[in-house]
């Protein structure tokens, strides 16, 4: 039988696979590659530069998830900006950012919205809450992205051929199986929505191999204890009432139609891109950095010339080495 190439789409799966050593026990005919499901890794350089540019505006407090702190921008990272005295705070929840806004009425608080369908509904709910409480110094810089369009982009790529997809568990908690069923049938790629324990991943790999052998192009849920066929309809409703779908810029992949979320007209007063005149110079990709290829499964992290040489977790050159979910960070820490 030919070699089977499976992609684990989600960064949390990448980390779980590396940590458990699953790759070492797989038969040689089954290969696992990382995909575009690490939020920080797929965020375009221009979006990262925008976030850093906002941090330079007077009387602004930046609130962000920790993963964004050390991603290198054109000149510096948010962590470096913070060390120069800029007010940049790590938060666990977007609601924490709203509390900061309430406590600092004379400052403008900008939450950096990075992530997928797991995270965006929590931010949408926070924006609705800000409107309800009439908090007018709270803004979101929306860099949110959608997973299904990225699956089509990877599947249609002529640079890599993936036979089946291990789909993200917590994105699927929200979106359910519908989008994967369409994708699986349309692109002839089986999908299994997996949980995050080692055993979940092994069972999912087994099911994918069985489906590939049987030429069955379906979407199945392995992570049944959390994911349902219909997903979380309330979360999706909240998401749709705050955000519009727009084209999105992905690192390495480029623009994917209908793959990003932007704040809609009704909530425009919370949109950081409308509130601030954010100017960034034309962004060039980091020299030698191959994060773009890594997140499409085209190369393994150790095939990048910077890996372990000039790019390390202590001194990362690209987001895949920064993020705790990044494929390069996982490779560095745990090996293959």
């Amino acid at each position, binding site marked *: 039988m030919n070699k089977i190439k499976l992609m684990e789409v*989600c*960064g*949390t799966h990448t*980390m779980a696979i590396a940590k458990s050593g699953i790759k070492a026990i797989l038969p040689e005919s089954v290969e696992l590659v990382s995909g575009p*499901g*690490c*939020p*920080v890794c797929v965020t375009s350089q221009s979006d990262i530069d925008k976030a850093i540019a906002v941090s330079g505006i007077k009387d602004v407090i930046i609130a962000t*998830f*920790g*993963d964004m*702190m*050390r991603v290198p921008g054109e000149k510096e990272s948010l962590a470096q900006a913070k060390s120069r005295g800029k007010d940049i705070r*790590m938060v*666990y*929840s*977007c*609601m*924490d950012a709203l509390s900061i806004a309430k406590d600092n009425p004379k400052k403008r608080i900008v939450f950096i919205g*990075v*992530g*997928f369908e*797991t*995270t965006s*509904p*929590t931010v*949408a*709910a926070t924006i609705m*809450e800000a409107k309800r409480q009439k908090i007018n110094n709270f803004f979101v810089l929306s860099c949110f992205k959608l997973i299904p369009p990225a699956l089509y982009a990877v599947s249609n790529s002529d640079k890599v051929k993936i036979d089946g997809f291990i789909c*993200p568990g*917590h*994105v699927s*908690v*929200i979106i359910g199986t519908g989008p994967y069923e369409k994708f699986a049938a349309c692109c002839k790629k089986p999908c299994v929505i997996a*949980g*995050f*324990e080692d*055993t*979940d991943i*092994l*069972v999912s790999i*087994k099911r994918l191999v069985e489906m590939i052998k049987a030429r069955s192009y379906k979407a199945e849920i*392995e992570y*049944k*204890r*959390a*994911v*349902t066929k219909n997903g*979380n*309809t*309330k*979360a999706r409703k*909240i998401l749709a009432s705050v955000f519009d779908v727009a084209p999105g810029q992905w690192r390495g992949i480029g623009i994917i139609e209908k793959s990003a979320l932007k704040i809609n007209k009704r909530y425009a007063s919370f949109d950081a891109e409308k509130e601030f005149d954010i100017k960034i110079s034309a962004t060039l990709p980091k020299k030698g950095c191959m994060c773009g290829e890594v997140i499409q499964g085209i190369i393994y992290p150790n095939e990048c010339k910077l890996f372990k040489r000039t790019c390390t977790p202590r001194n990362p050159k690209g987001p895949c080495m920064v*993020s*705790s*979910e990044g494929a390069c960070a996982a490779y560095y820490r745990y090996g293959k």
Partner: protein
Amino acid sequence: MTTTYRWGNIMCLAIPGKIKKINENQAIADFGGVYKKISLGILNGVKVGDYVLVHAGFAISRVKRREAMDSIKALKELKEAVRDEQN
């Protein structure tokens, strides 16, 4: 909490907690002895005693016990399949 690493939370990670108390859209959840306030703003029908997955301070899904047991069963089957292959 397990979500907190050196540089903050892992983005798509969600951890299970047990609902202890509900007050309108907010709840207190028990994460293995650590009690934390969470929002119920994006999940319908949560009751005291439910296990929920919590991501970035929000309950995103209920965790089902029976289905969790199914995963354990699947693991057993996998182990048996591997053993059969080795024999």
